[in-house]
């Protein structure tokens, strides 16, 4: 258990709803859910997850902290916004799902090998290096995330796609060596670092 996770458990024991309200983006909306179920029924991928938004919100109120934060469900959201459009109470459900995912990540409770979480991390690391996404490296990093052998298999399976992208000048093989960047990468990194400190201070203050 991470330190932050222990601290949060200690501080909010028995009131996971309060913890969510204070720390999860748009979390203060959770209590407004009236459990009508329209989000669950409208979600195009709803039958593929263990926990629909409706169920997650009820679990939050029931204090099922571990089950919620280690759930796979909020990582599966594709941001189609069907739930937001349909919610009779106007809950920003998509944003709450992302907020929960973000908070779980912060606490180190993301299920192991969760593909969306892995992709997000790879994307972020890639972006932070140069201030621009290096698509070639991003693609390779994803192909090879499960080891060298699997990486070769993935790359061969998508060979045609890669060639077509190069032909259409959507991807450049030279990007493999360094790659293009923004003017002041160091400045961007500093900016993000500062933002991170502010966020961390805020959430530490809640712990």
């Amino acid at each position, binding site marked *: 258990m991470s330190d932050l996770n222990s601290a949060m458990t200690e501080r909010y024991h028995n009131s996971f709803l309060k913890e969510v309200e204070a720390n999860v983006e748009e979390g203060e909306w959770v209590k407004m859910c009236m459990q*009508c179920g329209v989000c669950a029924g409208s979600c195009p991928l709803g039958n593929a997850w263990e926990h629909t938004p*409706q169920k997650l919100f009820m679990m939050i109120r029931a204090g099922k902290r571990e089950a919620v934060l280690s759930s796979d469900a909020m990582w599966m959201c594709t941001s189609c916004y069907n739930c937001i459009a349909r919610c009779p109470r106007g809950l920003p459900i998509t944003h709450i799902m992302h907020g929960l995912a973000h908070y779980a990540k912060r606490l180190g409770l993301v299920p192991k090998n969760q593909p969306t979480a892995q992709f997000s991390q790879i994307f972020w690391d890639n972006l932070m290096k140069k201030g621009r996404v290096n698509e070639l490296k991003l693609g390779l990093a994803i192909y090879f995330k499960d080891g060298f052998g699997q990486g070769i298999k993935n790359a061969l399976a998508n060979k045609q796609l890669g060639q077509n992208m190069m032909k259409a000048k959507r991807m450049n093989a030279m990007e493999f060596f360094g790659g293009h960047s923004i003017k002041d990468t160091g400045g961007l990194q500093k900016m993000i670092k500062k933002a991170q400190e502010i966020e961390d201070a805020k959430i530490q203050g809640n712990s």
Partner: protein
Amino acid sequence: MTEVIATNQTILVVGGGISGLTAALEAAETGKQVVLVEKRPYVGGRVTQLYKYFPKLCFPTCGLEINQRRAKMNPNLTILTMAEVTDIQGDAGNYTASVKISPRYVNDNCTGCGDCARAVSAEFDDEFNYGLGKRKGAYLPHRMAHPQRYVIDPAILGTDEAEKAKTACKVNAVDLEMQEETVSFKAGAVVWATGWQPYDANKIQPYGYDRFQNVVTNVEFERMADPNGPTGGKILRPSDGEVAKNIAFIQCAGSRDKNHLLHCSRICCMATLKQTHYVQEALGDEGKSTIYYIDIRAIDRFEDFYQAVRENPNVSFIKSKVASITQNKENSNPVLNGVDTEGYHRYANEHDLVVLAVGMQPSVDKASFPVDIVINEEGFIEPATENGGIFAAGCSSDALDVNRAVQQATGAALRAIQVVNRVAGTEG
């Protein structure tokens, strides 16, 4: 030419549904002069289109008959039908109202014999039955319409049909030369009782009211259950005319929803519970009702009614707001899709017929309201001092059932009486 005798001690009642009729009668029976303006060709409003009332399951025609008798007997009450208020000028105690009266093409010689309707063959969608049936081009809107006078549809004017109606009339009641007219008269106070309309089910896109024939609204279902209605009281599927045995009711169809109506319409839960009785009455144990709901709001003494329906083994309850309706293409059965709240089970339930318990939308249009009026975010008139001598009655003020609308209308009548009494006091 219609003549209206009125002073600034007269009370104008706008809307002749159960609330307006009640307010008008209560005020007239205290001795006040009252002018009642009704848009339809008859009074009674939407109550006339109900098969039965909850919770007693008695017939609205019964109370309506009493009210119509009160109206006929009272010399203080003037009723203008097919009439709409187009303008109101002035202040409390001194208003001038303009009223547009559409031609009925039938004068008060009419005995209600129906010869004109028999002579005419042109047919139109019957508004009284929400378009589920047809009516003639010369028609009595419904069997106990008050005033008991036929109406000629303006669509047949200038055709042989209109002449046929005129020729058929033995009492010289058909007057095809009748013109639209505008009258204006004084009033000291106004009771605004324009009521409600069923929320437009077409706006609830995922329920497919516009696409699936076997998805109907609760107000249409009232007409289907009524033995005097378009199906003779048989609950038939619009797609194939087969008897619907497995019927789903969807609650909060448009109510309690920020995308539609913000408010709880209050009547729909009880209306649906009542309509399960219609299913039981029409089909016995063969008729199955399933109610999809968020919460059942059966307040006060209605709880007993709810519990009795709960005990009926032919009625089941599923706690879930239905997410969408699709259609089984083979048999046109609607399929209800969603997730229930008691166990989070995903379902795709097929039914013969779906009844949408649509909510009450106030018939108060702020944009075209003749004077400045305070209207709340739900569209109802607020009881505000800024409204001067204009008082909302019934469903212009809130989503109310008949019982509460009538009580509220009586209160509105009293406030109007207080204004005209003040006028009488100053004028000596």
